[in-house]
């Protein structure tokens, strides 16, 4: 089958590779770009593990062909942390709130939460639940993830101590970086 040339921006860098039209964007990133942070669970749009940003908009990369991303700008989970490895507030909060166990679904959650909080920095609990409903997690029972989404809402400076409620318990945390915490 004829392969087509696909040129796109991935995490700020221009990438040019070939792909069969039937290759999904998720497979393209993993197999042609070596970016295996984007995980594939169901491969038909149900689980949300492959969520990433296309031109800033959160989409499922298993429901888009790589050829459709030609000329567009893609942000994967590899593009979320700072260049020196410092976790983004969302990533730090997921770590600190036990928002992951096996980690398989985590890249998708990081991307969905990043888009959610960018578009709605002060979501209600209902909006958080709705915003997370497109991502499956089979380990955590979601409560740690919910807690993590609430943490970046507290725009604290490093060293600040803030309290929040998690599952009916009052938890006090010291902020290490903006939006991130340690116990």
């Amino acid at each position: 089958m004829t392969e087509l040339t696909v040129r796109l921006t991935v995490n700020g860098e221009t990438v040019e590779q070939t792909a069969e039209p039937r290759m999904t964007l998720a497979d393209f990133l993993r197999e042609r770009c070596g970016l295996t942070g984007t995980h594939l669970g169901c491969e038909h749009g149900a689980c949300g593990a492959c969520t990433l940003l296309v031109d800033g908009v959160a989409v499922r990369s298993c429901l888009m062909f790589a050829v459709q991303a030609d000329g567009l700008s893609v942000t994967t989970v590899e593009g979320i942390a700072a260049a020196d490895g410092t976790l983004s507030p969302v990533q730090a909060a997921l770590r600190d709130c036990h928002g992951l166990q096996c980690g398989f679904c985590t890249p998708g959650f990081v991307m969905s939460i990043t888009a959610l909080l960018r578009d709605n920095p002060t979501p209600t609990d209902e909006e958080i639940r709705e915003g997370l409903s497109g991502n499956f997690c089979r380990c955590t029972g979601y409560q740690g993830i919910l807690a993590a989404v609430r943490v970046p809402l507290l725009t604290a400076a490093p060293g600040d101590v803030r309290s929040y409620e998690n599952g009916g318990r009052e938890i006090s945390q010291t902020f290490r970086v903006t939006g991130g915490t340690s116990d």
Partner: protein
Amino acid sequence: MKPAPFEYHRPGSLDEATALLAELGDEAKVLAGGQSLVPMLSLRLAYFDHVVDISRLTELRGVTAADGYLRVGAGTTETAVGADLDVARAVPLLTRATPLIGHFQIRNRGTLGGSVAHADPAGEYPVVALTLDAEIEAVSAAGGHRVIPAADFFTGLWSTALEPDELLVGVRFPVWGARSGFAVEEFARRSGDFAVAGAGGGVALDADERVARAAIGLLGLGSTPLRASGAEAAAVGQRADELDAAELGRLAMSGLEDVPADLQGSADYRIRVGAAMVARAWAAASNEAIGQRAAVGARP
């Protein structure tokens, strides 16, 4: 890679798109947002030699108000429909149905035209189009422009009146007048799943608080979206505040012939859920219409 191989086309204009469809005929499938088509290709429930990607045709996007109706371009994403203030004012049922479609990541790619053309019997936009007697605009390279009433559009499971060379370019939704109310209710096992059953409705009242117009649409209760015309007829002419919503729900379930049965629920279960969804939607729509009536009457 899970889908079968296909040749990919990305026409640069509407004319190019219809010319391609005319040339390729039923070997081609139109790809809009891909949120239903790509899973079907990946699961190999469908395969096509040619895929014609219209997702970048900006001329297919946008909402325009015209005399008596609101036109939504087929390529308008569900996210854009849900956020559009003109849609919210003129066709509230469309706005209220939007959050029930999948998840926000799905709605970011999925389009109104794609949803209607895909014609899933449990899809939200197909049932809204049918319930509001929308008109579907199709163009072809040969035949020009055709307007298909929603009542004639949904011909079977995932099947429509569109010819292989026709492209759905927009949907016109009639704008109801004052003293009307709308609601959509559905029950799904998980948020964002296709509903086990659901209903959408519109109620318009006359000066005597009687139902002047009733529209009740059903989703997930047959091989196409459906209208509960018996229940609608029973409601028209009645005083809105005296109507028994639960009874209308039961009436709306009479005569259903091909209610699906699967692991999510038996046909009997779906009928019970459907009756409850009709009752809830009717009560909410009716209350909204009655509230508007009272507000008008309360003016000094």
